[in-house]
């Protein structure tokens, strides 16, 4: 069976510069998938090709079993929420919401019904007569969302829709978005460079870097057992260390012997999350605290072991250790071994 959205070997280059190396991805019906990657890695390019604004240099796209990439944007049954909101500044909120339905020749009473419905689910009561410039950023983004949702498209695209909002608003809109997706169940592809956003919202995350898909997985999989160094570093904080492995045993640079979560031989790389290191003050410890940051819910330390420095985090309920304290530490559970893959083969 074919997935709802199938992207096969999509490439894009501008002259000599390759912006997308062959990218393949399938999204199931009703899934919320996030494309996560640093700025400039080709996320927007991918969305623009899906929308039909930009032409792919190669590859195919299928949506709901039909070839998509040959149709013009207006015939694609895809709606998009833009980072800039892209509301029509010369139309009231009501007209913005009705524009797409009018273009698709939806009859007037059906139009009214669907607008009333999105006004309800996007909480736009009382804003219908306003012009876009009379709305706050959060309200504008809710209108942009409603304008896309009212189309009842097969696929919803989001290009960093929350990145122009302040932190608090971003959090609350993120929750609204998740609740909305649960309610309408539209297949969604969401682009962001914010790993916290990706972790909080997604069924699956597609990690992208430099025009390639690095790795795909659920937030839990990617956080706990990433295959690639890039993923380990991009999702949350981590300590990357080399070990001398033999079977499931490994020796850290300072001689400590640990258990690995998979067997390996020779030199290998592990990812050790800061929260999996437990430290206690110990005059005979091998490490020294070199910095402390109190972030409320967590305490964040760096500690030095010889020439290496490790990041450690701790629940913020205890009194912080002061800089210069000698500490010893325990590692919780087996340490995660990363794959030894060069970038190009990671996908």
């Amino acid at each position, binding site marked *: 069976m074919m997935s709802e959205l199938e992207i096969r070997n999509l490439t894009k280059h501008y002259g000599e510069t390759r912006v997308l190396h062959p990218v393949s991805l399938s999204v199931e019906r009703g899934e919320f998938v996030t494309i996560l990657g640093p700025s400039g890695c080709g996320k927007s390019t991918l969305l623009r090709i899906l*929308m*039909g*604004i930009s032409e792919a240099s190669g590859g195919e796209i299928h949506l709901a079993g039909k070839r998509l990439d040959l149709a013009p944007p207006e015939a694609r049954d895809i709606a*998009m929420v833009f980072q800039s909101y*892209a509301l029509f*500044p010369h139309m009231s909120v009501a007209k913005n919401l009705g524009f*797409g339905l009018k273009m698709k020749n939806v009859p007037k009473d059906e139009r009214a019904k669907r607008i009333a419905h999105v006004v309800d689910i996007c909480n736009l009561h009382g804003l*219908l007569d306003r*012009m876009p410039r009379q709305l706050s950023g959060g309200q504008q983004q809710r209108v942009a969302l409603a*304008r896309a949702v009212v189309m009842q498209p097969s696929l919803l695209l989001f290009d960093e829709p929350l990145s122009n909002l302040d932190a608090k608003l971003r959090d609350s809109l993120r929750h609204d978005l998740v609740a909305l997706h649960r309610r309408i169940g539209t297949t969604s592809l969401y682009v962001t460079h914010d790993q916290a956003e990706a972790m909080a919202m997604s069924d699956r995350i597609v990690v992208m870097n430099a025009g390639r898909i690095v790795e795909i997985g659920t937030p839990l999989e990617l956080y706990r057992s990433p295959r690639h160094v890039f993923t380990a570093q991009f999702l949350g904080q981590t300590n990357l260390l080399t070990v001398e492995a033999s079977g499931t045993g490994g020796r850290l640079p300072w001689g400590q012997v640990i258990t690995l979560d998979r067997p390996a031989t020779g030199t290998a790389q592990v990812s050790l999350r800061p929260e999996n290191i437990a430290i206690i003050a110990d005059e005979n410890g091998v490490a020294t605290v070199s910095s402390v940051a109190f972030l409320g819910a967590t305490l964040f330390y760096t500690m030095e072991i010889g020439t290496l420095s490790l990041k450690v985090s701790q629940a913020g309920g205890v009194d912080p250790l002061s800089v210069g304290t000698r500490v010893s530490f325990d590692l919780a559970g087996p340490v995660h071994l990363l794959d030894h893959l060069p970038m190009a083969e990671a996908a």
Partner: protein
Amino acid sequence: MSVLHRHRSLQLLLLLTPGVGYLLFFFGTPLLSALVGSFQLEDGTFTLNWYQCIFTRASTLRGLSTSIYYGTMPVLLSLTLSVPLSLLLRRSFLGRKLFSGLYKLPLAVPGIIVGLMVIVVFERGGFFDRLLAPIGFTLPKLVRDDWGIGVILAGAWKQVPFMTLIITSAFAAIPEDIRHAARSLGASRLKTFLFVDIPLAMPGITAAILLTFIGSMSSFAIPDIVGPPTARPLSVLMVQEFKQGRFEQVYAMGMVLSLFAIIVLLAYYSLTSRIGHDSRKGEQS
């Protein structure tokens, strides 16, 4: 000094004097003296005679309608050329940079040269005529013809760059995302153009229309050289009167022409402010 400190408005007035005074003196004074002159007989007594002449004599009435005709037609022609040209300039094509530099050239050419060029190129026995003669075509009468086709062509040739410049920047000011949003919501290229690009570029387009209208209504060189002798616009008639020393009549004609320009400008302001008001209030479909 203490008087100045106590009266802020007086202080302000003094501060504004250099700027406002300059405007008042160099624009207001000539306009005022022309206005006063247009209501005076040679001996200084009040009269409406000069205005009466304009609105009763056949030649000046014809002049008024010709002025409006020469104001309107080149603008319409330029508009039908400038909008597609602006759209073309928005796309990227080979040689776009060169083209966008070249199309502005007519901006630098004075009206009188444009008029002479039209004569050289389009007059019977001129450049095109001689070019077409061997293959058995003759050019229709385009110079000093009854419909003023030559005037309209010359005027448009001069206006297209200016109009294109303004309309191009009006289109360029529309964010790309907004157009893309329209496309993804089911609007074809044409509908996106009609419902998104045009309304958003409208202030720029209207400004371009009005400015070129006022310019071409009061232009002298082109209609004088290329226009038919049967229909002379007010601007040309004014110069004729001037040469005969009837300054009061010239003033009155100038006032009528200015009044016309002012009415058009006021119409523009009320139109744009109403659009602004409408969009502020919003309307439901």
